[in-house]
């Protein structure tokens, strides 16, 4: 059966998600200065770090990913979005929930945390529902579809465990397993949801943006199985306190990442475009970077033990996940805007090309600043060097502001 076009999600709603996401990214950079002291001391169980992490993950990453998924799911899986009305309700529920939750975390107000945490959970639940009802119409399952649906499953579990954490914080229902809930929440969110959704959509976007054909996808099931098995074994390890499960689980996840990097290199070998756009280049480097981060973490762990946890977490979240999203977003926003504004003018009048909507040269400057800032921040955290973090985060913030400006400029084209 021939794949047929599908109804896209509400484009204006996607813009709202992206704009709020970019705004959160700016706030995150300001908050980072405030959290410098604790980060440099290796202290992360404090409210300003919780606010920092959740502003980045819930406010920026999740906001952008959810907004873009309303457009990408019809494209990647050839299904229509189940309900655009539900998407709107979901946006407001989630946005209000996240803002309230961040205020609750900031003020250490457990009632706010519980109430707005529940609202955030409801917002995500509505998103999951809308996605699953959309995917229900899927005709042909493939590796990408399986990874995306599994990632959505982990998204649900991530917020469920997050909700259990804040409710436990408020009502002390499970005082003995608070840490286990926290580690599982982090594992599900970082690996099960965000890493997997990037991997899943890369199966579509990487060949599309590089015009690659004729490459093999023979390792796709191993990538999927490695990561899934790794997550399950790690959860067993977290709850049983048996280190063997942690080691073997981590090993399987590493195998999944190694194979995914190989998959990306296969796609790159078969690309027709000799020069890739900067946004996509960044996303590709983020994949190889993830391997470097993991490899380096393993080596350093042997010498330094758990002290590498915080800089590793920083590089993994901000480097691999953050740069993947920032890179793809730099490609996707012009795509969405062009489709919205010019698609019905093709063949009738001259229309701009996508490269006319966003500057490659300026993009390179923004990404360079972000990259220098990223390395500096990670090193500053690892070496407990406060003034160094101040300096590098200033560079990162400059890059972030410039990046945000370039994205917003697309809407003025």
């Amino acid at each position: 059966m021939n794949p047929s076009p599908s109804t896209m999600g509400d484009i204006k709603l996607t813009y709202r998600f992206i704009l709020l996401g970019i705004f959160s990214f700016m706030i995150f950079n300001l908050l980072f200065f405030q959290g410098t002291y604790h980060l440099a001391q290796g202290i992360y169980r404090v409210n300003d770090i919780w606010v920092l992490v959740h502003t980045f993950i819930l406010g920026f990453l999740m906001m952008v990913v959810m907004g873009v998924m309303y457009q990408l799911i019809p494209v990647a899986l050839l299904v229509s979005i189940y309900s655009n009305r539900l998407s709107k309700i979901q946006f407001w529920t989630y946005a209000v929930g996240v803002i309230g939750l961040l205020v609750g975390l900031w003020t250490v107000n457990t009632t706010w945390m519980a109430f707005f945490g529940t609202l955030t959970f409801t917002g995500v639940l509505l998103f999951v529902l809308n996605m699953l009802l959309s995917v229900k119409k899927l005709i042909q399952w493939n590796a990408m579809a399986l990874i995306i649906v599994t990632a959505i499953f982990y998204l649900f579990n991530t917020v469920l465990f997050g909700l259990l954490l804040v409710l436990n914080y408020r009502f002390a229902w499970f005082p003995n397993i608070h840490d286990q809930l926290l580690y599982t929440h982090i594992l599900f969110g970082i690996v099960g949801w965000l890493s997997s959704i990037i991997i899943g959509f890369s199966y579509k976007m990487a060949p599309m943006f590089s015009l690659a054909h004729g490459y093999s996808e023979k390792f796709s099931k191993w990538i999927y199985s490695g990561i899934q098995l790794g997550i399950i074994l790690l959860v067993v390890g977290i709850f049983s306190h048996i280190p063997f499960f942690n080691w073997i689980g981590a090993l399987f996840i590493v195998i999944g990442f190694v194979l995914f990097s190989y998959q990306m290199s296969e796609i790159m070998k078969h690309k027709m475009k000799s020069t890739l756009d900067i946004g996509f280049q960044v996303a590709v480097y983020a994949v190889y970077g993830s391997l470097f981060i993991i490899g380096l973490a393993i080596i350093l762990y042997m010498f330094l033990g758990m002290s590498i946890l915080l800089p590793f977490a920083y590089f993994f979240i901000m480097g691999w996940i953050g740069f993947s999203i920032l890179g793809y977003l730099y490609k996707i926003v012009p795509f969405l805007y062009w489709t919205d504004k010019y698609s019905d003018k093709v063949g009738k009048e001259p229309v701009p090309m996508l490269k006319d909507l966003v500057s490659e040269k300026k993009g390179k400057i923004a990404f360079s600043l972000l990259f220098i800032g990223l390395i500096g921040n990670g090193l500053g955290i690892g070496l407990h060097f406060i003034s160094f973090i101040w300096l590098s985060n200033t560079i990162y913030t400059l890059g972030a502001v410039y990046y945000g400006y370039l994205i917003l400029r697309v809407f003025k084209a």
Partner: protein
Amino acid sequence: MINVEKVREILRQVYDPELGLNVVDLGLIYDIQVTENNDVYVKMTLTTPGCPLHGSITAGAESAVKSIPDVKEVKVDLVWEPAWNPNMMTEEAKKQLGR
């Protein structure tokens, strides 16, 4: 007088905005037929199924052909068999992509 070449020429004005190449040089046009009544049939594909630019490129091809004076009915069929591959591009298009 409308003929296949004239239709092909007008389709060169329809671009894939991501690649900056027109649909003819990209090798996306599989067949063009022009009847005695000046009805035009175009069979085309896209570089990948589920391309987000699906609607705009096919509708753009239809609009471009309709803009030819005296054309009556225009039908654009989007097909996925045979699947597009890079060898279908013209040498000029490959060159523009840096190949």
